[in-house]
């Protein structure tokens, strides 16, 4: 099973849990499994966070394979612009 490591910022969605083992073959399945265990975390980590698998940061990783003994981290997107009203339609300023 892959090991998922949560940063302190994500641990508020896991009740303080830092590491979990998850049985999943790809990132999409892994996020679904995490969301089942920690309801609501799927939306946080599945919408714009980068994924690091065994040390490699992958920006769009939904279809990425997860090795059985892999170590997975979720990271904030490195580039700017993902915060605030992301996902909302055009707004009047």
């Amino acid at each position, binding site marked *: 099973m892959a090991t998922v490591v949560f940063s302190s910022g994500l641990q508020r969605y896991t009740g303080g849990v830092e590491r979990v083992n998850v049985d999943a073959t790809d990132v999409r399945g892994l996020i679904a499994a995490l969301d089942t265990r920690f309801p609501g975390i799927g939306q946080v980590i599945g919408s714009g966070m980068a994924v690091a698998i065994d040390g*490699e940061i992958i920006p769009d990783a939904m279809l990425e394979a997860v090795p059985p003994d892999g*170590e997975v981290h979720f990271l*904030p997107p490195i*580039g*700017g*612009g993902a*915060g605030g*009203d992301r996902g909302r339609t055009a707004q*009047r300023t």
Partner: protein
Amino acid sequence: MSDERKYRWVGTRPIRHDGVDKVTGRANFGADFSLPGMLHGKVLRSPHAHARIVSIDVAPALALEGVKVAITGADMPDIASEMGTAGEGQVDYAEVSRNVMAREKALYDGHPVAAVAATTSEIAEEALSRIVVEYEVLPHVLTVDEAMAPGAPILHDHLRTAGLDPVPDEPTNVAQRIEIGRGDLAAGFAEADEIVEHEFTTQMVHQGYIEPHAVVARSGEDDQSVVWCCTQGPFTVRAMCAKLLGLDVSKIKVIPSEIGGGFGGKTTVYVEPLAVLLSRKAGRPVKIVMSRQEVFRGSGPASGTRIRVKLGAKADGRLTAAEAWLAYEAGAFKGSPVVAGAMCMFAPYAVENVKIEGYDVVVNKPKVNAYRAPGAPPAAFAAESALDELARKLGMDPVELRLVNAVKEGSQAIYGPKFRAIGMVETLQAAREHPHLKAKLGPNQGRGIATGFWFNAGMQSSASVSLNEDGTATVVSGCPDIGGSRTSLALMAAEELGIDVQKVRPVVADTETIGYNDATGGSRVTFATGMAVIESARDVVRQLRERAASIWGVELEQVEWNDGQALPINGADEGELEPLSIGTLARRAARTGGPISASTSLTARGAGPSFATHICDVEVDPETGVVQVVRYTAIQDAGKAVHPGYVEGQYQGGAAQGIGWALNEEYVYDEKGVLQNPGFLDYRMPVASDLPMIDTVIVEVPNPTHPYGVRGVGETPIIPPLAAVANAVRDATGVRFGDLPMSPPTVLARLDAR
């Protein structure tokens, strides 16, 4: 990847293919292009930092003879929020649209509010003065302190702080809060024998590229638009113009000119969509060239910041805890590089207990854009300055303190994952052994060191290699050459093909000639586009071997490619077959299967991070407060230097820009929020006479995921200088400067107050 491999071309220093054109002035930059019947566009910009646009009347401008069209925000489609790629980061197209042309409100001094196109630039300029704009001036905020204060004037009524749970339903200027960390911070500090805590500020600075943004757009009756412009990302310009104007991507072709510097600042659009819109309305080509003043006021500089750092360490120097709080100015729209700053600042060190909190804050200044390792230099300034103070408290050599804590392969980065092969320790060891560190200092002189880390990017690249009929080759990529990448790509093709690099012609193509390429940025082109070139060249070599096998009547496995020729092996060499050179095979191509070429499109994976250690000596004039950098050494891991001369140039250029950031550069605003120094006379960048020769050391710890071991090198060198200079000034004066820039009046005031 083979670090044992002997290279013939990779690692050499040929003269760049575009060198003669550049030094003779023949090279065509953005403003050099013109078309028959072309109109000249000009942009009217807000004189206010924050104002409601009550009305805009362009009729008086249109009444002027020679004025053909005028546009305002009302002519721009109101597009939905949608994230897209720009440089290394993500942008919201809806906000890019509102940045290139204001709608209901002007959000900074210099925000475009209207544009015209006329038969001459003088008439266009006159037309701008006739446009009547009624503003309702609003209170403004210029710093993160002002913007985050309770009751602060709000830029965007709809903005809420992402990253808080639950998201508050109050309008705010804080677009996002992020937190990264691990371990037990309190326990880490409790374990420490020494603790240091400091606060730092940096000011908004500009990339300072010498070439202003320039564009010519031509639109025809067939609805197609062609855009000639200086940009780091022609495909980005195409995507943004299409999105912002509601067009299909296929309706726009972008032809990149030579580029006179970008440093991240030319990875988005400013005047390009306006030129396209004006040309579509006028039915004639339209040229817009930004003035230097417009570049300062209306393009995308780097964030001003406020950062607090607290470090704890054992007496032996081992870090036990690291805490930081960062707030970055995003400019008028969300999206500062605070995340990268947070992730980079302690990345060179292995620390078990870490907490970093970051805030992305909108202010009434230009929307920031990428600037060489976006976000990292201010964060490293804070972290490395604090580390310098810690070394002093511990009585440790600053290099040794860093070596005690340096990350290596298998270390857990503070932002989470484990590092693969990296060269942090090696750059520190190279610094320790460098004569610079042992040289004696003179009166009023001091020495500082600092390190830096940058991720480097891979992203999407396409490239092709075509064999010409005489055995020379053409390499086509879609990444504008901002740092010598053309010749680096040619070197890699030459290496694979086994021909002289001067027989390889590298070309930067337009958006209709090559497959998609992400922008030149993220220190990615030599790494990622290089992979596409290597793959294509290897395909060409395979085809050449097939042709030789066909001519000789042997199997493919019986043909080896070596030094530009096919050789018979595996039994084929027992006969009388003569080697077939690349020229011979190229000349026979028509009779053996046709032209030989290959294209590769890929998303490059496995970009290797790059670490640097810089050493800086300064002399501080106690009478004037002038800080002179008297010696500087930049040491960095390149993985494998494809063209060492260009790698050294990147180290030197990054160091020069970082020194400017440290000593003099800053956006200066008056109390009304109007920029006071939008020109190189008052915005003081270092010139050659300000700097010593910057020594360089190329460390090579191969990146195991690249065929030659290449890492990106362009961004890391701007990260250490801010702290290296500040630490040197501290050494020379005994005064810790936490606020940049360390300009003469600031330094003198602090020295006088000692």
